[in-house]
């Protein structure tokens, strides 16, 4: 009889009976897998996140991220367990989470890779459109205010708002710094809504833009009011740009350095080209891919039943959507206001893409424009505000961290 009893104690059956929340979390993890695999929602991140959710909610498996209270050795978290003690007491997933995520390490590393995959060319060719990457940060702050009104702390509200930056690593980095206990749902909301950009942008555009505005043809505007500034030496400009930009932005928003600095380093390395091709290869290949796997698994593993099944999770789902919508709205309104004052009109879709979610948002905007006028290719124009939106949300994140941390 003892053997059967021991056998039963070894299994996790009693844990599921005691806490059926685990089963619900396994269902949620499976649903996220479905979204990632079948619906192809940002699969590169959603699949590891979903698997992390599943691993974390297999009771007895020891793969769930534990609260920082168990790591801290004093009340203010200044003195903590070391990594070996974490691995011994809480297993490898906590070892990974506390060394790679809690330290704020992986998001800047992923930004380095994204930088090395980014081409600032379209932005440099349509510089004035880059401006709308600012207007499209509105959702961040509007949702921040709303969330505080609903009882979130300022730090939690800022983490919720930053979903409106539509940029995964930025959202994760900000949440790590301000409200790590909400990391799982915020990361999932951010990536899910990025995958839903083909739905959200048309929705907002439908209620805010007239047909006449959507028919504005950017190429004809360019012919009518040609730019006086031609780029004679694109390579030199592209090399100088990340260096100068990095230094100047950092002087104004120092707390954006870990994110923006690494993004621009990655970009610089890529633009230098063949002499440092080894570095570009590492930044966009083994480093980025490895970081993506571990970011996904550990972020997913923060979503244990007790943390996730909370009223705040629902608020994050709702608030994240609002943040996206308001940011798109902000970009569109920014264009509308600008159009009041300039002769060279701008298609409001080029404001909507200020959201970021590169390059999906630009593709979606281009498709909308083509629906109204099959000759109105605006992809290159959208890419300008689209890329600048990444800078915009990193700057917004810097402001939030600087004021709230």
């Amino acid at each position, binding site marked *: 009889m003892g053997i059967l009893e021991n056998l039963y104690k070894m299994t996790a059956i009693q844990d599921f009976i005691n806490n059926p929340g685990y089963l619900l979390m396994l269902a949620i993890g499976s649903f996220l897998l479905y979204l990632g695999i079948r619906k192809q929602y940002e699969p590169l991140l959603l699949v590891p996140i979903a698997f992390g959710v599943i691993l974390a909610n297999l009771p007895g498996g020891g793969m769930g991220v534990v609260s920082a209270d168990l790591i801290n050795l004093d009340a203010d978290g200044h003195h903590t367990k070391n990594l070996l003690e974490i691995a011994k007491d809480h297993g490898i997933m906590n070892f990974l989470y506390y060394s790679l995520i809690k330290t704020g390490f992986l998001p800047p590393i992923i930004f380095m890779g994204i930088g090395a995959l980014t081409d600032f060319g379209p932005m440099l060719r349509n510089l004035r459109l880059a*401006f709308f990457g*600012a207007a499209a940060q509105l959702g961040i*702050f*509007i949702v921040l205010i709303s969330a505080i009104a609903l009882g979130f702390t300022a730090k939690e509200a800022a983490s919720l708002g930053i979903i409106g930056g539509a940029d995964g690593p930025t959202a994760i980095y900000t949440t790590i710094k301000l409200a790590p206990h909400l990391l799982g749902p915020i990361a999932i909301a951010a990536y899910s809504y990025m995958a839903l950009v083909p739905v959200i942008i048309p929705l907002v555009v439908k209620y805010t833009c007239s047909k006449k505005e959507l028919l504005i043809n950017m190429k004809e505007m360019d012919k009518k009011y040609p730019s006086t500034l031609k780029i004679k030496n694109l390579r*030199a400009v592209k090399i100088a740009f990340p260096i100068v930009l990095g230094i100047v*932005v950092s002087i104004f928003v120092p707390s954006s350095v870990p994110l923006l600095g690494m993004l621009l380093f990655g970009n610089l390395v890529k633009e230098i080209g063949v002499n440092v091709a080894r570095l570009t290869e590492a930044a966009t290949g083994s480093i980025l891919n490895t970081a993506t796997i571990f970011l996904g698994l550990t972020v997913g593993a923060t979503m244990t039943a007790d943390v996730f099944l909370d009223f705040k999770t629902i608020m994050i789902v709702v608030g994240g959507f609002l943040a996206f919508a308001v940011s798109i709205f902000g970009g569109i309104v920014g264009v509308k206001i600008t159009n009041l004052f300039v002769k060279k009109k701008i298609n409001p879709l080029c404001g909507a893409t200020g959201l970021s979610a590169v390059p999906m948002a630009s593709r979606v905007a281009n498709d909308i424009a083509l629906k109204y006028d099959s000759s109105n290719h605006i992809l290159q124009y959208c890419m300008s505000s689209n890329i600048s939106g990444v800078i*915009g949300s990193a700057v917004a994140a810097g*402001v939030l961290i600087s004021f*709230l941390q």
Partner: protein
Amino acid sequence: MNEMGIALELLGVGMVTVFVILSLVVILGDLIIRFVNRFMPEIEKAPVVKNTTSGSEINSKKMAAIVAAVSKITNGAGRVANIEKL
């Protein structure tokens, strides 16, 4: 200051900062382009590969011939990414 006051201040500070920074992006981009146009207008050649260890020893004449051939055949749409001696 209460939480809502902080929130409103963040709205102000945040949006102002973002607008300032992206204005700077526009201005700096413009200045860099003008600077480069004035002082380094020539289309730089891609730098010669130095200190590489790949051990490619196909000589430059052959390389040129290959590149030319590929370019001709492909109407310039193809490039020889890498030829290694086997």
